[in-house]
């Protein structure tokens, strides 16, 4: 045992315990910790809004370097606050419109390429894809399984026809692949959750109580 003398470690440890107390039931310690969390998180964010964003990208160019064109984005940005003034609150749609428009626009070709075309490329049956598995002649088998799996699970999410006949068969095969995927996600999520607990215990038993080095 080698308990930490650092007051900060004690604060961190006690706060952790306050959160863990939620397991018993919701209580004032948990609520204090929760509100403290949001308060400090936002205080931290403000620090970097100022030092990393507002200063170098807005105030510096506008006020110190005198780039007066920055007045335009500045005014558009101010429009966000019109939402509190009912008579002109529609003006808030201008900055929102610009932002949404651009993001939605760039997302269309990016989504098409990364999540459709590239995925088709990885699924097509060709010798290049067979070799990409690094699995010798098994590569052909793996590719065929992926190919069938993709087509069938796609057919499960096809809503224009009842799942009867051929579509009935493929959608039933499809759901098998989908469930294997969810099973894999399930197994990995269990690992993730236990990892978080281990991480906290490493801190409490190590940094705080000094039981593990």
């Amino acid at each position: 045992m080698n308990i930490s003398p650092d007051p900060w470690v004690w604060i961190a440890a006690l706060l952790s315990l306050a959160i863990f107390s939620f397991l018993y039931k919701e209580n004032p310690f948990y609520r204090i910790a929760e509100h403290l969390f949001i308060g400090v998180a936002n205080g931290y964010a403000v620090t970097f809004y100022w030092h990393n964003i507002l200063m170098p990208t807005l105030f510096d160019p506008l006020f110190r370097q005198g780039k007066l064109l920055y007045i335009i984005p500045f005014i558009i940005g101010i429009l966000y606050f019109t939402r509190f003034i009912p008579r002109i609150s529609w003006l808030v749609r201008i900055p929102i419109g610009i932002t949404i428009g651009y993001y939605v626009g760039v997302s269309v070709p990016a989504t098409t390429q990364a999540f459709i075309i590239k995925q088709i490329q990885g699924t097509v049956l060709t010798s290049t894809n067979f070799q990409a598995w690094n699995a010798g002649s098994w590569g052909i088998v793996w590719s065929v399984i992926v190919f069938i799996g993709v087509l069938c699970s796609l057919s499960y999410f096809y809503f224009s026809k009842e799942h009867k006949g051929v579509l009935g068969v493929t959608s039933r095969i499809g759901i098998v692949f989908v469930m294997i995927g969810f099973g894999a996600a399930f197994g990995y999520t269990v690992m993730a959750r236990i990892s978080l607990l281990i991480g906290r215990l490493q801190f409490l038993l190590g940094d705080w109580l000094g039981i593990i080095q």
Partner: protein
Amino acid sequence: MKFIERLTTIDRRIIYIILVIVVVIPLISRSPERVRVMLPVEKLYNAVDTIPKDKVLIIDFEYAPQDMPELEPMGFALLRHAFEKRIKVLALCLFVQPLGLAQKALTQVTEEFNSVAQSNADSIIYGRDYVFLGWQPPPLIPIIGMGTSITNVYPSDYYGNKTDTLPLMKHIKNYNDVALLVSLCAGSIPRSWIAYAQNRFGVAVAAGVTAVSAADFYQYYQTGQFTGLMTGMKGAAEYEELVETRLGIKKSRKASEALPSLTYGHLVMIAFIIIGNVGYFMQRRRRK
């Protein structure tokens, strides 16, 4: 029969205590495990290892405190690897919460190297060997913007230095000078890197993700969109293993040390599911 019935009605608090015991004992008894390194991690390691002198590695630190146990060991292992091989590193964050953790990783690993350095050339020096670009939101701005100019997107770094005055940034203009970008993230950001940066500018991307999103991300690894992939604590332990066996760096290995606890944790979860289901099916049979 009675026994099984009792087994299926254990109180919630007892379950919690069992979990804690199962996780704590291996932590205290400390029996580190070796892991077999799987191909996705090995590919990532090799990609980092072969970064040429004139290019940089970008590490996108995107883990917040709640993802720390899984992703922080990856960050440490990557930095140790890069600094040991004197690969130049640019660090950045796309959200504000991870900033402090990136700063923590960078200072700690730099300190590890500098505490044993004999000379200036041996040391890891800010501005020469690595740069912490800090945070510029929203995420898409740096992801797309670095395709044309990194210093335009990040006019100043985390500490407030002008980036174009840093020696390392003199040779680094845009993605053409980036050999690999590794995104350590719990959310969907690695997907944005491939959709916006890789598609348009052709930069190589790899990812270290939490186990929660592992199953989703393998498809991008299969297509080659991700050069390599680390998933969860296990993936971090594999990278730690490579850093220790291939580079001989013996430092704390948080992820590997956790593996025994993870093992018992998994077993107890499986046991819970099986016991619960036995009870469920017995009840169903009785109802029939």
